């Protein structure tokens, strides 16, 4: 017997109301129920960081949360960060620094870094590496990502 719950959640400023089974993972809800496929799913056991989103401003693994738990909360996904015509400064910096190869881990890394850079506007290399140590990337060896974060920090502090 399947029972369902009503969920009302604000994602990227838009309010969504849906009915979900309690076991539906938040990652699947965002991707398949709301069509926000920018959040990627890779391990579904909380290690790789691909599905990182901001939940009430905090970076979380959306594969380790239930959609029903998002009821009444605010979520930011990569789609809410910037568009290809109007990139967020962090996205701009990632573009310039060649921080992207296949791009699969990228949204999760961006969402991890947004609150990190707010808290640490001028991070050093070690802090950056620690901040993204919960995000696996198989293409870049991380170096250009670290460079992108440094560049973003510079851009963002210059624009203040």
């Amino acid at each position, binding site marked *: 017997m*399947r*029972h369902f*719950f009503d969920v009302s959640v604000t994602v990227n400023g838009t309010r969504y109301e849906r009915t979900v*089974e*309690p*076991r539906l*993972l938040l990652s*699947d809800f965002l991707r398949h129920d709301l069509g926000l496929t920018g959040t990627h799913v890779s391990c*579904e*056991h*909380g290690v790789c*960081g691909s599905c*990182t989103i901001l*939940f009430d401003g*905090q*970076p*979380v*693994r959306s*594969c*380790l*949360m*239930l959609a*029903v*738990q998002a009821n009444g909360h605010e979520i930011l996904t990569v789609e809410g960060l910037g568009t290809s015509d109007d990139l967020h400064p962090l996205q701009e910096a990632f573009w310039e620094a060649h921080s992207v190869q296949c791009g699969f881990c990228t949204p999760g890394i961006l969402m*991890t870094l947004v609150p*990190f850079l707010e808290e640490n506007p001028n991070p050093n290399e070690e802090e950056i590496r*620690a*901040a993204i*140590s*919960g995000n696996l990337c198989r293409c870049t060896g991380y170096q250009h990502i670290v460079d992108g974060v440094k560049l973003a920090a510079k851009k963002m502090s210059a624009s203040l």
Partner: protein
Amino acid sequence: MKPPPFEYYAPTSVEEALAHLSEHGYDAKALAGGQSLIPTMNFRLAQPSVLVDLNNISELFFIRPDENGGLRLGAMTRHSQVERSSLISERAPLIYEAMPKIATPQIRSRGTFGGSIAHADPSAELGAISIALGGRLRLQNQTGERWVPANEFFIGMFTTLIEPDELLVEASFPNMPPRTGWALQEVARRPHDFALVGVAAVVTLDNNNLCKKARIVFLSVGDGPVEAHQAAEALIGQTLTPEIIHAAAEMAATADIDPGSDIHASAEYRRSLAGVLTRRALEVAFKRAKGSSKFDK
């Protein structure tokens, strides 16, 4: 990797949560941060038929000083709150120091202090630290509550004294006496991995720099946190010279623990690490105890 179906309740008070637990007994699981439970369910290794979600119970989220200079933490306090708390850094620096070693930033956003302790993973830092600091845990059911010392709480792999109708609601830590030093030493493959071996040490010196009190607690060497009683006893009344520390570390590694083997480390390697890390932890703790004026009255 999708969880099996379950019934779901999201109570807003401890009382309500306890009613659900009492009704469903062994079929129910309390859902705290979910950072261990949900992956286990995604692998379908755990298939609870009822989940009681604690995330809407606001009374379980707090970090408070207590009147004796100690600390009280609500069970649902998130790791990310703990790692940013000045009260924690002041009154329980060992906990503060451990936080960055606990999983990844994203896990710490969601994972909870009580959830980690109640899950009783033998590799978890907070269980060992709670024992090292002489912490106590408050368990509540519909009929009342009980306080359990952390060193009596863990009874086996993923097993604690919590009864199916009970909830861990709070942890409390006593004031750290003057001339107390602490350290946490770990070896992990990658910084956020479960440690191959870890050890928390807390030592208190008297005015003559003799060791008055010592506690050494390991993680990842047994079914739960493992206290090195013999090694700790050997330190009492001693000046903590390198030789004494070395001997105690050897005793901890050989007499106090009986580690197992897995794909990451053999028992022999774990024993060797335990000796090395205990020595290093005691050295740091001793140095801090000698140098700590912060807690001197």
